[in-house]
């Protein structure tokens, strides 16, 4: 289980990106984190994965634990070996490497040969297209295929918890639906998922639990199905309700969210 406890993160000692976030990802569940740009979603995942330092960010307070081990002081490689693996935003596949080499790169943190072979079979099973294109340069794949490769690459490390940063970004609605199905399938096979999304329809469709992040704080949380029914989520993320209500005049000073219909 991943537990994040009153986490505060700043960049360059000045910009507060996450201001006291507490959340949990129970074993075997899919947890969605919704929020607009700048809500602190990516910062949250960077903190969990240990890449905050590369962005000159720092944990000021609070902790991130996975199965009881504190992750905040570990380097990214150790965190991968603990079983927490991220699919970064914008896919970030290695475009000049072949599809197969991308998968090999994903398995670098996985020392167990048998587990790696099993993971490889699982990836080809989930994404037959990656088997067909194994010798092709990854940069030549379509956007949807690249997202599948990015997920497959992360699965090569046999994660217990998969972190996904906006997997729907820039993809066609039909492909987003497929990605949602894949996430559900990966979860059925026993991997917990922390899904960060702007596309609330897809995220709330696959998630068991959900959190809404707003300027670095959790503003709403609960079971995904319940959250989807609340007025705020309906209005801000699912695109229902009266547009006039979201106008700046009716918003408080901290309410910088405008209407995000993904």
């Amino acid at each position, binding site marked *: 289980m991943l537990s994040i406890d009153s986490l505060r993160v700043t960049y360059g000692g000045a910009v507060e990106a996450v201001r006291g976030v507490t959340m949990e990802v129970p074993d075997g569940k899919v947890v969605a984190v919704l929020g607009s740009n700048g809500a602190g979603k990516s910062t949250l995942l960077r903190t969990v*994965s240990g*890449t905050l330092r*590369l962005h000159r960010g720092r944990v000021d307070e609070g902790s991130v634990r996975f199965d009881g081990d504190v992750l905040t002081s570990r*380097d*990214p*490689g150790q965190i*991968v*070996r603990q079983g927490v*693996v*991220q699919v*970064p935003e914008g896919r*970030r596949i*290695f*475009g*000049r*490497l072949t599809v197969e*080499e*991308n998968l*090999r*790169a*994903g398995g*670098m*943190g*996985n020392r167990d040969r048998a587990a790696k072979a099993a993971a490889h079979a699982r990836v080809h099973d989930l994404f037959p297209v990656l088997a067909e294109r194994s010798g092709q340069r990854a940069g030549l794949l379509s956007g949807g295929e690249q997202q599948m490769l990015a997920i497959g*690459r*992360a699965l090569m*490390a046999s994660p217990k918890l998969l972190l996904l940063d906006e997997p729907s970004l820039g993809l066609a609605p039909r492909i987003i639906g497929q990605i949602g199905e894949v996430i559900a399938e990966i979860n059925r096979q026993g991997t917990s998922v922390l899904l960060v999304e702007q596309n609330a329809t897809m995220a709330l469709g696959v998630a068991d639990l959900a959190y809404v992040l707003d300027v670095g704080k959790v503003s709403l949380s609960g079971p995904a199905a319940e959250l989807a029914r609340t007025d705020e989520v309906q209005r801000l993320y699912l695109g229902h309700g009266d547009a006039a209500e979201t106008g700046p005049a009716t918003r408080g000073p901290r309410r910088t969210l405008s209407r995000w219909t993904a």
Partner: protein
Amino acid sequence: MTQFLSLLLNGLSLGAIYALIALGFVIIFKASEVVSFTHGSLLLLGAYSIARLSEPLGFLGAVLVGLVITALAAFLVERFIINRLRGAPVISLAIVTIGVDIILLTELIRRIGPDILNVPHPWGGESVRIGGIGITQNRLIAMIVAGLLIAAFFVAFKYSSWGVAMRASAEDGETAALMGIRQGRVSALAWVVAGVLAGVAALFLVGSPTPGVSSAVYATALRAFPAAILGGLDSTGGALVGGLLIGLAESFAAGYQENLLFLGRGFGEVVPYVVMIAVLLVRPSGLFGTKELTRV
């Protein structure tokens, strides 16, 4: 015609040695994002070690220990300087490597002094003739060894886990880290490989027709820089082509010197740089370099 073929063969063998050096330069750039100006003095260190050790240890022992020393020196530079400055601006890192180079070079020149240290290559200074074309045995062996080493390098770069890890982290370091690839390790190994390649290049660079180890070897080693740059700093294939091109250009310019007298004597020495500038004017990122080198 014989002269042409002879210059061609000699140019290729010299180019193969340059390619070894340039290859090291390129993999360091790819793994650590540093333009390493320490390479010239590392090479001189290799040459000096082999020359000094060949009396107590014999030729073979001296070569082995010399290669270890060069690799170790490269490793230490990476561990104690480059790795600690990770994330510093590329320019500062390059300047730091210039500093290290000057320190190492000054010490080596002090030790070598005005002498020319002899490396007792078992193949000596003999020449062989292949169909009327003359080449020193040293250069011929250099070409064969460099060819094998470069082939082995390319196979490892393409198929080994180190190669995949190296290319992945060169393309996107942060994502490679997210995959559990340890960049520190990848980078350290790149410096070690580059050190070994420089050591091997040193071994042949101080053999016939070069008289031996003197501080002039440093200037020769520096010609691998234009080789790496004209090939495209981040392209291993480019380093190979660039090395060969520079070797050929130098050989032809020296061989046809009397036809180039209007450019002055010793034009061969500046030819590598002239070729580099000519190539860069047409292709600013080198022959095979990636156009956009800015990494965010």
